[in-house]
């Protein structure tokens, strides 16, 4: 096929970009070369619109072993142990084919983690669907949940936490973000940087088929009517082969044969080979006849751009081929020496004894385009005046019922019961708490992980929203007694070519950066997903934050269920009554305007660290952060989980009761303490100037809000648990 401007445009390249390619090469590329350029230069692989802004994120810290730039981030969890983690999106494929799209997303993120030598120990997911009334929502939800479970369960990795939301902005573009944590010894981490000349390049895993050609370009385009034509690019996941690949890779990694290793993810063999060579400042030569293919007559173009799953590329030490082959044979996987490292600094492809591509690697990587796209700053919206007469008419019990049973607050048990969350025998906090917690096998330590996003806040004011998500992640970790260490992020946005969307991106990133800097909660890995839109309608900006923390002694882990009668319940952090953008405002008042709650990073840090201090002194019986739905929602959940009641005190606040109970001010927690510890707890909190107030005392099976308003725990349970199950069984 002849290459010209038209063909380049069909590959998703811009005219300028095509001209740049011709200039760099000093000739017209052939079709294989064009394919390679289009794969490397698309948004998904090149980060051309986001690079400039991502640079500003804080990525360093005492505990950071590896920040962004590798397959995943790595943090130190002491005693020679390290945790490898990352989150990744698989949005477009999941919309087209929810089961396979979600499944291969989970498969892909696990490969990113075990490529670095780590055994995956936990999965998380953040999934966002359109309005429950939208005709596609139910099937998409079912397919995605089955896909995530289908892959993770088969691999035998527990799914320990997640997040699920519904919002009509996802009607035509759902989000599926998958996160994995792996455990590795600090001195046995593997990287993708190739080194040394004439080292054998080996291909292992599944065979290459025609699946997923141009997947990475699809992730870089918005949906339109033509999406039907793009359907065949969806890949089918094979978790069984991935399980074998995991075991085989870890077996080979136990020895000293590997120089570098890279999984074949987006843009398959193209990006993996180029990345390894580029990082090592080397060239690479690949003989495409040697690549194990599933179909006959595959062309160089197809082989290079296939996104068949469950494949890895490895640069080996010379002479280790036999050792490696033996291991992959044992696990019944394909193994082939397909090339070698060279000093040409080019990628050279041979097929049928002919050179079918020859491109300087720096043209593909360093010289890839970077854009400083136009973006629009958001103003902080004006505060709404709460309609006092409307609020006055509301009954607290009705509001509580509506909030607890609303799609975004209700229990997600229907989802996580379909995920194996106990395999590997180290899950000590299951889904349903503030963070999932798994023990580091054979030690007293445990890692906690949480995944969060607040699209509504980000949409109302991206800068505040960006800060808020990081703060929420931090709080979720602290609530289980973990010291927050670092985060990963998955930035789901609309088109960067639209000023509004680009502005949302830039300011969310700024907010994330400010919060993570202040909280010393650096970003160690991440992923950007642009073009989440159908036709012209973009999603609400949805940066997802995956936070990881360490619990040094897992006997000190905290759960949120109320524990014992007569214990006192306190609120840490000040309640100002911020109602705008709260779940209450949106679902009860039907009010969509106004600013999100303000994030005061000083208070965040101070309140969180003080709580950790109390936990460390064994003064806390249960804890839960206050998020969506405010104080009363949080308390109701603690009652439900503990099968306990509480008698609330009348608040001394000046604000109206409804505002007090349902406002979403940030930086707050609910804690349960033994009455005998009240003095000491108060002393510590006062010393640290943490605002706190007593709100009630634990009793049996009834939530007593005031003399007139009482709700049994069974009632609360039915509000909270029925919605999703009923919705899915209809």
């Amino acid at each position, binding site marked *: 096929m002849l290459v010209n401007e038209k063909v380049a445009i069909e590959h998703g390249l811009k005219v300028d970009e095509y001209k740049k390619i011709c200039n760099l090469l000093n000739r017209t590329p052939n079709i294989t070369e064009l394919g390679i350029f289009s794969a490397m230069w698309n948004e998904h692989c090149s980060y051309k619109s986001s690079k400039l802004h991502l640079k500003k994120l804080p990525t360093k810290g005492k505990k950071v072993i590896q920040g962004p730039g590798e397959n995943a981030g790595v943090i130190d969890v002491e005693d020679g142990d390290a945790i490898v983690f990352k989150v990744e999106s698989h949005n477009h494929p999941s919309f087209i084919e929810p089961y396979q799209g979600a499944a291969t997303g989970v498969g892909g993120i696990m490969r990113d983690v075990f490529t670095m030598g780590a055994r995956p120990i936990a999965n998380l997911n953040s999934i966002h669907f359109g309005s429950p009334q939208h005709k596609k929502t139910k099937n998409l939800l079912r397919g995605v949940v*089955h896909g995530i*479970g*289908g892959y993770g*369960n*088969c*691999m*035998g990795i527990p799914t320990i936490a997640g997040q699920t939301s519904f919002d009509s902005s996802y009607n035509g573009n759902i989000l599926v973000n998958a996160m994995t944590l792996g455990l590795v010894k600090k001195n046995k981490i593997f990287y993708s940087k190739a080194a040394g000349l004439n080292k054998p390049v080996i291909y292992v895993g599944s065979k290459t088929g025609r699946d997923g050609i141009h997947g990475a370009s699809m992730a870089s385009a918005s949906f339109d009517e033509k999406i039907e034509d793009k359907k065949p690019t969806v890949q089918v996941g*094979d*978790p*069984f*082969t991935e*399980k*074998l690949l995991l075991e085989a890779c870890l077996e080979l990694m136990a020895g000293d044969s590997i120089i570098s290793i890279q999984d074949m993810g987006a843009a398959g063999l193209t990006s993996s080979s180029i990345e390894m060579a580029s990082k090592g400042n080397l060239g690479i030569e690949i003989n495409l006849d040697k690549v194990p293919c599933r179909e006959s007559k595959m062309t160089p173009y197809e082989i290079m751009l296939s996104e068949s799953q469950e494949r890895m590329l490895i640069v080996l030490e010379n002479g280790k081929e036999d050792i490696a082959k033996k291991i992959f044979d044992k*696990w*019944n996987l394909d193994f082939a020496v397909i090339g070698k490292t060279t000093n040409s600094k080019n990628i050279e492809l041979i097929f049928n004894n002919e050179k079918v591509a020859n491109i300087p690697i720096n043209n593909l990587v360093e010289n890839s385009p970077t854009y400083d796209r136009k973006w629009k700053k958001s103003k902080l919206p004006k505060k709404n005046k709460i309609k006092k007469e409307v609020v006055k008419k509301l009954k607290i019990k009705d509001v509580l019922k509506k909030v607890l049973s609303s799609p975004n607050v209700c229990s997600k048990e229907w989802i*996580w*019961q*379909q*995920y*194996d*969350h*106990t*395999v*590997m*025998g180290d*899950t*000590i906090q*299951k889904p349903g708490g503030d963070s999932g917690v798994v*023990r580091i096998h054979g030690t007293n330590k445990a890692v906690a992980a949480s995944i969060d996003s607040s699209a509504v806040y980000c949409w109302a004011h991206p800068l505040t929203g960006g800060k808020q998500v990081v703060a929420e992640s931090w709080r979720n970790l602290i609530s289980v007694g973990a010291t927050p260490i670092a985060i990963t992020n998955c930035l789901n946005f609309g088109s960067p070519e639209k000023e509004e969307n680009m502005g949302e991106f830039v300011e969310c990133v700024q907010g994330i950066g400010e919060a993570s800097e202040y909280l010393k909660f650096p970003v160690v890995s991440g992923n950007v997903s642009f073009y989440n839109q159908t036709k012209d309608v973009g999603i609400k900006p949805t940066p997802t934050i995956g936070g990881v923390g360490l619990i040094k002694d*897992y006997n000190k882990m905290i759960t949120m269920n109320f524990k014992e009668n007569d214990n006192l319940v306190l609120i840490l952090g000040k309640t100002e009554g911020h109602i705008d953008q709260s779940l209450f405002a949106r679902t009860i008042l039907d009010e969509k305007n106004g600013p999100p709650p303000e994030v005061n990073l000083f208070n965040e840090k101070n309140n969180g660290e003080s709580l950790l201090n109390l936990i460390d002194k064994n003064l806390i019986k249960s804890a839960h952060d206050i998020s969506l739905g405010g104080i009363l929602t949080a308390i109701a959940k603690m009652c439900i989980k503990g099968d306990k009641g509480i008698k609330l005190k009348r608040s001394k606040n000046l604000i109206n009761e409804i505002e007090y109970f349902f406002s979403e001010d940030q930086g707050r927690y609910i804690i349960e303490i033994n009455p005998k510890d009240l003095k000491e707890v108060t002393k510590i909190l006062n010393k640290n100037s943490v605002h706190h107030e007593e709100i009630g005392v634990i009793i049996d099976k009834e939530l007593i809000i005031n003399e007139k308003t009482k709700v049994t725990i069974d009632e609360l349970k039915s509000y909270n648990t029925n919605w999703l199950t009923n919705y899915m069984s209809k």
Partner: protein
Amino acid sequence: MKSSVITFPGSNCDRDMDVALKKFGFNNKMVWHNDHELPNSDLVVLPGGFSYGDYLRCGSMASKSKIMQSVINFAKSGGLVMGICNGFQILVETGLVPGVLLRNKYLEFICKNVFVKLDNKNNKYFKNLNKDVLELHIAHNEGNYFCTKDQLKEIEDNNQIAVYYCNNLGQIEEKFNPNGSIKNIAGIFNKEKNVLGMMPHPERMIDQNLSGEDGSLFFKNLINNIK
């Protein structure tokens, strides 16, 4: 006491079982599916997981593994063989225990705690256990036990039902049946009661920080019975 845990390609509870057996005093060996011979053992365990990806039918391909002939011979000579979850599915496919395991009634994977009632303590697995109702954990997609009417009669006549799904009080009712199994069957024996297949995972319930501790009771009792 010596035990062996067989690892098939796709097994994923093999390590968990190893940890549990060792914790309660077994000298456990891991055995690869492609081996021909079983090490000398007092107990052979087929662990949970997704052997061969659960492709075709759960357990069907693992049942054709090289090692399975030795396991079958071991069982036929009276050796103790226990299959948990996928292990149960493999046992069914080899015919060592009767029946089949179909997809769960609502076609959903289920991961949660359940209660099971012991039906028959006249065997090495449950003898001397001082509880009749255990809280254990299930995690499976295909645990819907089925057999023909004739088989069911035979199973009942021979007292082969090992455990039933029930509530915390030991009541065996349809509403406590998580997956549609006939008669709430959660596990069964062969005729001689030396082979046990069951869906619940005792190895996931072996310390207070996990989902519960009734698995500990089971293993402690088991090793005492074998001694």
